[in-house]
């Protein structure tokens, strides 16, 4: 079986700063994969380059065996994307957004209407379906974004920080939908820095730090008997070292300080 995503030496620099320094990301088809890393590790940049939203300075990316930049038609029909930042067509209602998205991809209107209705119901957005996206809360935006990404039944789904700023109830809805989706053999790749969540959901983990992949493989291999959080801190070189020197004033009562 081919891998759902495979990149070779993916590279991107912004001026002097190298954001992604030769990433070889591998995600097997059918896995629920987590891309973890500290802030600024290059997760978003990597995902943007694989989904064709950002031009890499070097390297190649393949989705389902198709080259992202040479075969955009095949790739774009196969992927669903939820980027960070949640910018959607704000002056459409949730339902109109889904209709627009599906029809832009050439799905016949009756089919789109049916799928949109079902997605809105599952995402618990039926009441807000006819309100403008500009008035949606963060959780609602993530959910409508996910619905739009799922509408054309992609085989690989890319989600950038899908759970950030989402309340537990909406997060639960999101995970249920995603688990059902991967159970049918599709692939989900999401970036996050919430280790507990990654540990709970994923069967495949790629750890990024400073523009490189520092560990990659099945969840159990990567954590190697530790919790994922411990493994992660060691991998990115920030193992907890007890108290730091300095900061001795922190937590000291004001009254003592003034004496």
């Amino acid at each position, binding site marked *: 079986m081919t891998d759902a995503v495979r990149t070779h030496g993916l590279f991107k620099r912004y001026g002097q700063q190298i954001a992604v320094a030769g990433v070889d990301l591998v995600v097997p088809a059918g896995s629920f994969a987590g891309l973890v890393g500290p802030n600024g590790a290059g997760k978003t940049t990597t995902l943007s380059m694989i989904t064709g939203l950002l031009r890499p300075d070097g390297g190649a990316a393949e989705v389902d065996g198709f080259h992202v930049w040479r075969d955009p038609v095949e790739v774009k029909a196969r992927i669903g994307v939820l980027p960070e930042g949640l910018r*959607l067509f704000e002056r459409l209602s949730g339902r*109109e957004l889904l209709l627009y998205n599906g029809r832009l991809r050439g799905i016949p209107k009756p089919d789109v209407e049916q799928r949109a209705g079902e997605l809105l119901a599952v995402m618990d957005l039926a009441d807000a379906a006819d309100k403008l996206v500009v008035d949606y809360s963060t959780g609602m935006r993530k959910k409508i974004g996910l619905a739009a990404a799922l509408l054309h039944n992609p085989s690989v789904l890319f989600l950038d920080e899908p759970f950030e700023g989402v309340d537990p109830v909406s997060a639960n809805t999101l995970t249920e939908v995603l688990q059902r989706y991967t159970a049918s053999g599709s692939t989900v790749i999401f970036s996050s820095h919430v280790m507990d969540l990654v540990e709970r959901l994923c069967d495949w983990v790629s750890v990024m730090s400073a523009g490189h992949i520092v560990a990659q493989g099945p969840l159990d291999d990567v954590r190697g008997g530790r919790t994922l959080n411990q493994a992660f801190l060691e991998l990115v070189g920030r193992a907890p070292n007890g108290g730091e020197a300095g900061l001795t004033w922190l937590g000291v009562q004001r009254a003592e300080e003034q004496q």
Partner: protein
Amino acid sequence: MSTVALFAQLKLRLLAGNLRGDLQRRLGFIFTLVIATGLAALGFFLMSLLRLAPADIASSLVITAFSFFLIAWMIVPLLAFGLDDTLDPAKLSLFPLRTRRLAVGMFTASVTGVWPLAMLIVTFGALVGLASNLGGWLLGVPAVLVQFALCVVTSRLITTSLSSALRTRRGRDVLAVAALLVVVLAQLPNLLMNTGFGDPAGMLRQMAAVLRWTPPGMMAHAIADGGLVGLAEIVFVALLVIGLAWLWIKALSRALVTPDVSTQAASVRRESGLIDRFLPDGPLAAVVTKELKYIRREPRFRVGWFSAIVVTVVLSFSLGSTSEGGAGPGVPIVLTCVGALMIALQSGNAFGIDGRSLWMNAVTFGSERALAVDLAGRHLANALIALPLLVAIAVATGLFTGHPAMILPAALTGWGALGLGLGVGSVTSVVLPYTVPERMNAFTGAAPGQGGQAFASAMGATAGIALLTLPFVVPLLFGLFWVSVAAPFYGLLAEVLGRRLAARIGFARMPELLAAVSKPT
């Protein structure tokens, strides 16, 4: 005093930090600096030149100018709300600052900057222009400072008391369209002049006689008077400024504890499906449907369309009434073409308003064709509104200028110009894309640092359209009105070719296009 220094420093830091690392932004700032210095010098010079004018005219002019400055200070920051970090009190609300200190600091922050400084210099120009005796010079300095403080405090009071309303979406939507009213108002004096309304000197005297009793008028009068009356006037206005400042502090402490008024989200009507009745199901119908909704719901689109119509109407009045004995038969044609140009120029940056949501299209477009269909949909939506509108303009101008025979050629030429504009516009949209900020104001239509692109795009589109319209404008100028029959076909051809070219260029540089319209604003 330390508060003043602190906030002045904070503001300068913010200004400097804004410039770091971005060449375009730095160039933009230098440009602003040059303009502001130029305007300050010019303003100071013109004001001081008033010394040479007869005393009563000079004082009338300064009275009018001071009032105008105050009004400008009241309106402009409102339209540009959020341009300046130190001006949003909400950002400072977590610091343990007493309201009094906060007010002093905010006042310092608002006077620290290029434009306030330029304003102060111009105001001092009035002192040179008006002061005639020692008393005038002595009273002039406090008068100028009080006038300046009046401008700043009034402007702060207005933005602060409206800030909670401005933070809601609906409030900002309303304000965006209200910006247009200012544009129209700015045209008013021009229109009045055109209609030859009395003699300018008499008008000025009448206006000054009324404005003389307003606070800025009193300040101008105080400089000219230089006696006890002037002193009384300064004391009165200074007290007024203190009163306004007190109101401002009250408004500030209220604004800091009042939560954002959450907008009551209203439902929108479900789609009627009118478009689907005459378009086959598919991407094209989807784009047209979405685009028509955007024209109706997005304030930036509304502003664009309204201003296109307003400019055309204003031009019709000035062109239609300048030449005595009736306008020439070509005027309806020219006006309809101008209307078409104004409408088409909105499409000169077709992806700018989509901004960061454009990724949603970008992940869908797998081929040039998909992008071409997107552009076609946008053009079709535009044409659905523009074509009838141009007919209306042609009919109105034809009847207004007394050349009803010109209605048909005018409408046909207008349609042709629209097609040309859309074709050229689709090319500039992909070659010179720029971000259109969420909150438009009257001065910039682009994100910080992209003003150059916006300017180049508008100029390029205008030049391209002007050049391409020559083949049918020249014969029309010679009275060969039958040429207009061919204009719509010519326009359609230009639209198709422009769209194909744009799709080819645009698809190849989609990531760059996406980056250009996704700049932070």
